[in-house]
């Protein structure tokens, strides 16, 4: 096996067999899924104790309307409010007093309780009474079938956005969905470039402070050592992304099956939605959930996935080589901060540029930031889901890959000198001098 292969293998195996890596890789998707499903699950759990609410209704009109629900039981009562106040009934949770016709006197209903009344209870009470008042009110107009007429005239409106495909085919599109997809991929690129770039740096610093580097460079070229490390750690990153992707999809599918029933989205509507997205015939009657699926299906995930890998590799290689050069020129991890700051600012700028590009994915900020190699891997991921011309994507890739090869070449020169320099913290000026060393 070639030396660089050996180094890649060691870096990779050493890292993926670490307990911390395995735990993080398995735990992260679980946490993501838990973040979505646990609140859903918790909200679906009903309190087990049944609370009793007494209704003192002097009109006699409203009390029969209240129906018992899971954890509230409504009782019609003949006692007066005073009696309840003087001899509190421990069984009772609250008392609803209605003293007058609520159509003419809306303030005639009051809910008494010794505790803070939960929103759920006041909502039930409000809904029940409101429905009756509405009916009463409508009845005062003396128009037959008025209720049905109003029901008929209620509409909800949301403009449909349709994207013309290159073959003229119409597709439902949504800027919101494209933005969300874009920002997710952008965050992933940003996070991994920073995380794994820093990992390359600390690994270089570690080899240097361990003093193993002197031994290493007596058997391998410094360039092989640096590239082996960058590539090995890059594979670790790709492994983690892949694992997270697979695990998340699997867990969400499993979670989705469990909740499909309770959330009222059955698989048939989803499939119908998918088909409708292609044909666009039945889009109007589509359910909201199915529509979301239709919109997601207009996003070309195969293309995004491909460019994600391309830009991830380019961005990672570019920043990792810079991080490696920094790591090589300092003696210990504490000294990295002065060099880290500009890099971090650059990355954070790229992230913000990406977020603002969402508003106007074809604007000048978005365009230029997706061409400049330092920001392109991050900004481009925002723009791709919106669909941009092929030449822009290719130009950006060529610029990025050209610059990362340049960055590696320069970094290798600094690295080669830096790893054997001990004692003092170099300045940028000195690092530039190193470039000229033979």
């Amino acid at each position, binding site marked *: *096996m070639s*030396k660089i292969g*050996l*180094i890649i293998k*060691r870096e990779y195996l*050493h890292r993926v067999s670490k307990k911390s890596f395995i735990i993080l890789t398995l735990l992260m998707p679980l946490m993501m899924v838990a973040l979505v499903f646990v609140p859903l699950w918790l909200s679906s759990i009903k309190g087990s104790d049944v609370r009793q609410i007494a209704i003192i209704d002097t009109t006699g009109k409203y009390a029969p309307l209240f129906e018992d629900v899971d954890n509230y039981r409504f009782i019609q009562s003949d006692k007066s409010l005073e009696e309840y106040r003087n001899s509190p009934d421990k069984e009772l949770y609250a008392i609803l007093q209605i003293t007058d016709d609520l159509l003419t006197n809306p303030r005639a209903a009051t809910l008494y309780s010794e505790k803070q009344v939960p929103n759920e209870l006041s909502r039930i009470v409000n809904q029940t009474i409101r429905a009756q008042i509405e009916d009463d009110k409508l009845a005062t107009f003396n128009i037959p079938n008025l209720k049905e007429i109003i029901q008929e005239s209620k509409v909800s409106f949301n403009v449909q956005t349709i994207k013309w495909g290159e073959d003229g085919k119409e597709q439902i599109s949504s800027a919101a969905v494209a933005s969300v997809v874009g920002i997710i991929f952008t965050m992933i690129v940003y996070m991994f470039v920073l995380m794994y770039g820093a990992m390359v740096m600390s690994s270089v610093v570690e080899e240097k402070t*361990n*003093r*193993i*580097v*002197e*031994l*290493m*460079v*007596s*058997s*391998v070229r410094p360039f092989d050592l640096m590239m082996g490390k960058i590539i090995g750690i890059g594979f670790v990153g790709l492994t983690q992304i892949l694992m997270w992707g697979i695990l998340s999809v699997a867990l969400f599918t499993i979670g989705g099956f469990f909740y499909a029933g309770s959330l009222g989205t059955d698989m048939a509507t989803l499939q119908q939605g998918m088909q409708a997205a292609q044909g666009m015939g039945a889009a109007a009657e589509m359910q909201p959930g199915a529509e979301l699926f239709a919109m997601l299906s207009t996003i070309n995930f195969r293309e995004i996935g491909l460019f994600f890998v391309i830009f991830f590799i380019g961005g990672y290689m570019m920043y990792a080589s810079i991080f490696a050069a920094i790591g090589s020129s300092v003696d210990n991890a504490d000294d990295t901060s002065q060099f880290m700051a500009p890099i971090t600012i650059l990355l954070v700028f790229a992230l913000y540029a990406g977020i603002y590009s969402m508003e106007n994915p074809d604007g000048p900020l978005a365009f230029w930031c997706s061409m400049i190699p330092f920001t392109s891997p991050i900004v481009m991921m925002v723009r791709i889901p919106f669909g941009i011309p092929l030449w822009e994507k290719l130009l950006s890739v060529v610029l990025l890959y050209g610059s990362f090869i340049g960055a590696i070449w320069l970094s290798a020169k600094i690295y080669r000198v830096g790893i*054997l320099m001990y004692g003092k913290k170099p300045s940028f000026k*000195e690092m530039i*001098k190193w470039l000229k060393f*033979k």
Partner: protein
Amino acid sequence: MYFLEAKDVVKQFANHRALNHVSIRVPEGKIFGLLGPNGAGKTTLIRIINRITAPDSGVVYFNGRESRPEDIYQIGYLPEERGLYKKMKVGEQAIYLAQLKGLSYMVARERLMRWFDKFDIMPWWNKKLEELSKGMQQKVQFIITVIHEPALLIFDEPFSGFDPINAEILKKEILELKQAGHTIIFSTHNMASVEEICDEIALINRSEVVLSGNVSEVRERFKTNNYTLHLRNSLTDMPAYCHILSEKERDGIHEIRLHKEETFTNSALISDLAKQNEILSFVEEIPSMNDIFIKVVSDSNSQQS
């Protein structure tokens, strides 16, 4: 025949010249001492021999021809600053480093097992390096240096960090390696060990070779023609070519230090003295490498400044 030769090597760093026309010649199968004070340029020269850095000018000849990149497989290097991967298991790590020196997995493993047995550290094969004592880490490092059985071995301060017992084991191993035909470059400050094991030396001071040659030859060159004698009685008839430096008496034995002119031989001196005196001991004061080191370095420093 010289196994390794550096000719007229110059290495310039930004503000100072680390090596100024340095030439050394290392004979095959011998132990060559590379001496010099800190910062003299020894490590830079070793790095050039190891092809870690390139010289600005000058050539290194390896085994009779110009040094080539693949020659590094023929070199085993024990750097002064030791270090291995702390978090990696010892055996795994040793195999990895041996593979980087060009051994196959199977060969590396088999040879390592043998060495681990020899040094009695087999139980630590599956331990992380950081769990080992410093002495054991040094042993592991030594094994890694010699595992690919290179023709040329470079030891930079090999005894630092070893306790006397382990230093003795190491010295034995180094001499065994010499017996087996390896050429060894040995860089150290410990002059006692130089006298003991080195055949040839080169002394580098301020980027230049200030002294080189065979160890006994060098010592011969620096001899002062001073002698220490123990006599039964006080010295009476003194030859004209001598003068006494000091004399003291204890328990009836006279200890005399004297200086003789170089043109007269030791035998002449002994026979002249033996005529009237009972000689108990006769020792020519040959300077130690330590004395020579200090003398040469301070002389060359005072010349330059």
